[in-house]
């Protein structure tokens, strides 16, 4: 099979799984998950083949695998769609395939396959557990299977299809298709337990917030298409003439067309990758089941946003001269760095194990965006890949933690929030595999020096920032410090010390379908960093493969930075310092009340949700309901129509009362009749019925006529 054919086929198995499950197998759990996991496996296998082929091909950057076909007829020509595997999409494919497959396998255990049906479980709510009676007559409450088990696998299948489509696209339009399909899936999955009011709000919030960005992105796509006549990446991004043309064309507000389009496209990413000010949906997205959180936060959705700007980098940086950043890059550097710090501060004050991770995701995405903003193309890509692995790992591991604690909750009947870290503690003994893997993921996130992947990718970002934008460097270094701090806080509160609740006391290690993916992801969270070690540091011992390979996605290979000790030392200091501080402080904190970082401002996420609600959501509803509906349509427009109808009605009334009735009826209608009647009455005396009288009248008339005749004849 030609590589291109194989690439076309990659996204299809999960899509097929979606349709099969929805239409046919939705009542059969085992069959459904077999189809879904099998489909994910097929796509994974194909992806690995393609990835290896891509590695083997020389000069993949100049001669990528590509194939396109006609899709939309537009006037004389066609809008083509197709697939493209260049170094960038190859590495994206690598992390997508792995994380997706791991999440699929994990979901089987997470949704309690093999467990009995719940006693009071109903569709739309998380399972509440089932009561079993053993041979001794003892009653146990055990986890029960998810009531909509099959549906979950259908949805994540569609989700995976969206991501594969996005990564493999050779053009902006199908990329946008994949982008939006993921938007739908995140909506469906965040609201998977739609019976919960909070989940119902979260699903809408996610869709609507990202849609704000999507609308700008759509305009960017349309503008680009209008200006260049194509949406193909290669035709736009590898053609210096096209890029120069866009730079030379005027856009809005004194910016060039290239800058405007770049900013519009970036705004799409702001929504999708949850950058300030559109970050609000992502923490709420935790309402979904944990595999979904991993899917959204690591494997697919938010990575897609970053992937899109990395993909469009030649356009975003078009017109860059002598290191002066272009407007879109400035925007990215500013928003990215701000988001990185902003989200990190919020993460410090969160107690929900998943929410901490959610804010850390926002923060890490900020790192990537900022890196791209200062021109760190390779660094951003590298961090995207390593982050996908260690964040998927962290989410799945946190899901395992929750699962373990939930087991304890069911076992003890203690009513506590199984996601609150202050209800945990001491889990390292109960759940050793989860503990080790979570710690590996956490250390990678914190950038624990030399052995974790996160260290190398974050270090590369800091090095780039140090070389190009000192301010960004300072902000990012500070964020990295906070990252290490809250990560250690999380590890200590969850696994360290002694169990703080009975439920934590009875937590249980998860089954292999859950821990196996953790182990595999942990492997990558460590080793992946080794392919991107700066050669100056390794002394050329290991080639900096990431730089060579990913860098060749660009028409002009990015230069290797001169090695500088300052960013490296900074990386070391912030990572170790943050971890150390976190350990030192939280070793002694046993309850939320004792935690002095629980500042209301941070706890309430700077009140941004409240501000949006007050100044955006409520006014929008007022505009829709009160203004448009009541005032404009019912009041003004219908009022005017009714006015016309009323005028017509009263004109009709006037015509009837003042003209028809008196004039037509009174004078012409009744008048004529009256006239005749009067006349007739007046003439009645003539008709007596006596012949003599008629004869007399006849004579009189005859003579009168005769006289008249003679009179007129007289000359």
């Amino acid at each position, binding site marked *: 099979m030609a590589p291109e054919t194989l690439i076309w086929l990659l996204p299809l198995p999960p899509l097929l799984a979606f349709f099969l499950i929805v239409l046919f197998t939705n009542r059969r759990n085992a069959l459904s998950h077999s189809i879904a996991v099998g489909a994910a496996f097929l796509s994974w296998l194909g992806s690995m083949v393609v990835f290896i082929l891509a590695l083997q091909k020389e000069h993949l950057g100049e001669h990528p695998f590509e194939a396109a076909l006609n899709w*939309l*007829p537009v*006037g004389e020509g066609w809008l083509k769609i197709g697939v493209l595997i260049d170094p960038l999409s190859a590495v994206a494919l690598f992390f997508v395939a792995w994380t997706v497959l791991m999440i699929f396998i994990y979901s089987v255990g997470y949704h309690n396959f093999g467990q009995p049906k719940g006693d009071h479980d*109903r569709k739309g709510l998380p399972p509440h557990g089932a009561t079993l009676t053993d041979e001794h007559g003892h009653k146990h409450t055990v986890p029960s299977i998810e009531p909509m088990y099959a549906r979950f696998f259908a949805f994540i299948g569609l989700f995976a299809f969206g991501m594969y489509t996005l990564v493999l696209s050779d053009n902006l339009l199908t990329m946008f298709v994949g*982008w939006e399909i993921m938007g739908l899936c995140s909506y469906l999955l965040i609201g998977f337990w739609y019976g919960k*009011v909070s989940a*119902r709000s979260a699903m809408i919030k996610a869709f609507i917030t990202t849609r704000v960005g999507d609308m700008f992105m759509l305009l960017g796509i349309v503008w680009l298409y209008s200006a260049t006549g194509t949406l193909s990446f290669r035709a736009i991004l590898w053609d210096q003439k096209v890029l120069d043309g866009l730079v030379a064309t005027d856009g809005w507000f004194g910016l060039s067309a290239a800058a405007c389009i770049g900013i519009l496209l970036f705004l799409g990413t702001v929504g999708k990758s949850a950058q300030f000010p559109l970050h609000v949906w992502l923490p709420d997205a935790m309402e979904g089941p944990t595999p979904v959180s991993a899917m959204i936060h690591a494997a697919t959705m938010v990575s897609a946003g970053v992937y899109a700007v990395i993909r469009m980098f030649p356009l975003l940086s078009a017109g860059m001269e002598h290191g002066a950043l272009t407007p879109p890059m400035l925007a990215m550097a500013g928003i990215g760095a701000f988001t990185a710090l902003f989200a990190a501060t919020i993460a410090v004050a969160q107690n929900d194990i998943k929410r901490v991770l959610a804010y850390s995701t926002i923060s890490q995405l900020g790192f990537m965006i900022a890196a791209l903003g200062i021109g760190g193309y390779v660094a951003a890509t590298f961090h995207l890949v390593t982050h996908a692995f260690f964040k998927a790992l962290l989410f799945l591991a946190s899901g395992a933690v929750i699962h373990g604690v939930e087991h304890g909750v069911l076992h003890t009947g203690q009513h506590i929030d199984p996601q609150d870290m202050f209800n945990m503690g001491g889990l390292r003994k109960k759940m050793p595999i989860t503990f080790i893997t979570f710690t590996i993921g956490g250390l990678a996130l914190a950038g624990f020096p030399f052995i974790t992947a996160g260290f190398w990718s974050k270090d590369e970002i800091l090095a780039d920032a140090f070389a190009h934008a000192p301010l960004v460097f300072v902000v990012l270094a500070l964020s990295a410090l906070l990252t290490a701090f809250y990560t250690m806080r999380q590890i200590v509160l969850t696994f360290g010390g002694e169990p703080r609740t009975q439920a934590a006391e009875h937590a249980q290690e998860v089954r292999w379908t859950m821990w196996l993916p953790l182990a595999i992801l942990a492997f990558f969270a460590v080793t992946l960093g080794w392919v991107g070690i700066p050669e100056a540091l390794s002394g050329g011992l290991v080639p900096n493969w990431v730089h060579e390979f990913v860098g060749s996605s660009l028409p002009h290979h990015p230069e290797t930075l001169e090695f500088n000790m300052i960013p490296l030392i900074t990386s070391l200091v912030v990572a170790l310092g943050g971890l150390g501080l976190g350990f030192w402080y939280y070793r002694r904190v046993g309850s939320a009340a004792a935690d002095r970082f629980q500042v209301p401002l941070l706890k309430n996420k700077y009140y941004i949700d409240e501000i949006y609600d007050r100044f955006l959501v409520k006014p929008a509803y007022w505009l*829709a*309901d009160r203004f448009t509906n009541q005032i404009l349509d019912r009041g003004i427009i219908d009022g005017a129509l009714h006015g016309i109808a009323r005028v017509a009605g009263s004109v009709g009334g006037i015509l009837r009362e003042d003209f028809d009735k008196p004039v037509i009826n009174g004078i012409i209608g009744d008048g004529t009749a009256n006239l005749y009647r009067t006349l007739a009455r007046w003439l009645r005396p003539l008709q007596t019925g006596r012949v003599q009288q008629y004869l007399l009248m006849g004579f009189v008339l005859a003579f009168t006529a005769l006289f008249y005749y003679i009179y007129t004849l007289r000359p």
Partner: protein
Amino acid sequence: MDFLTDNLLTLILFTPTLVGAVLLFLPQQEKALLRWVALLGSLIPLALALGLWFGFDSGLSGFQYEFKATWYEAINSSFHLGVDGLSLTMVLLTTLLTPIAILASFNIQERVKAYMILFLMLETGMLGVFLSLDLLLFFVFWEIGLVPMYFLINQWGSEKGERTLWGGRKIAARTYASFKFMIYTMAGSLGLLLAIQMIGIAAQTYDLTELFRTWPTMVRLENVPLGLPVSTVKAIAFWAFAIAFAIKVPVWPFHTWLPDAHTEAPTAGSMILAGVLLKLGAYGFLRLVLPLYPAEAKTYAGALAFLATMAIIFGALAAYGQDDFKRLVAYSSVNHMGFVVLGIAAAAHAAGTENAVIALNGAVLQMFNHGLSAAGMFFLVGVIYERAHTRNLNELGGLFPIVPVYGGILIFTSMASLGLPGLNGFISEFLVVRGSWPVFTLFTALSTIGLFFTGAYILKGIKQVLHGPLNEHWVGHITEINLREIVVIAPLMLLMLWIGVWPNWILDVINKAMAMLF
């Protein structure tokens, strides 16, 4: 066989009336028989239209399957029918939606015979508009469609609801709605009729193929009243046409008849009303206004684009503000048809360019797509209304566990209506936005506000019907969607997906027609 091909259009046009005539002789109380005869009868025009579709050569310019017969010889008006890619698409939509709507009305219990006859008569009226190549004939069919629709709303419309008029007078909502629909459209028709008369007298013909050639370039008009200059006369006539069609589409601010009529009409009536009748207005713009008044259309395109943008934005906002599910869907038509008009306005302004062709591709495809999704949405509203006897969104909610299949179908159809990529609406909206961007950049940018609120109201609908805690009140009262109802919605869903994934089969026909027409 020759008879069939020679008279194909006439057959398509009058088979529904013929079937209606057959129904006339069937016994009133045999409801099932009446329904099935109507349904099977309405499948004949569909079969013929499919034959037309496959027999049509999209590569040829001009009209095909033309049929011409003497009609009103004294005033040079003839019975002239013909199709091109534009009307073909609309004929397909009409013949497809009618059987679906008839199947959807199998639950009608009162006066089935009259109902079905009116429905079939309506089909002839709509098809006549799409097939006519004679101005006078066009107008006749334009008006014929009104009558059955008036009675459908007035007699079979929803029984609840009242409207308070001035002076505190109360009338039944369906009376109000049907009256408003009728009078409003008639008000537009008045100008249209006068303008048609004027053209007929000045050009000495009503034949469109001839008028397309002569009328736009005609510099001297015969019998012009008051000695007005030609440009003024043409501008007035342009607006007479434009307003008539704008009311029908409807373009903001002529739209307020629509939420009333759509909400009060019986389910199948709403399906046809939104699915086909609104397209008559847009079709009028494309078939008559743009070809007959290219210069005027170009001059006033900006105004039209402005109104279209207002329709997009305020249609979406108004939909978002509704608590009545059906009214919400009704307003979504204003929003979606705004894109059709935006595309038409852009094409009018940039006639002859690639942008114009792209915008028109989008506009025509959007007409077809909206026909599918609006009909589907109205049907789904009807399904839930029939069971719950309420359309109030605040009383529904939490139904997903009770009606999972219905829920899935509702989400699918809603997403098509929202314009989710992968389904049909996205393609047409993308093309319209792409085509009008270089022409009316600001309006296009503003229209995305409407697109944004489209998301808001669609999600509001889904949320208020399906999601949320299980609504105990409806357990046992609301039953799952039945087989007949699935058969109604399934073809629509298939087409939505098919056009979304592989729009080529229909877009190619549209594209060629638009490239040749404009």
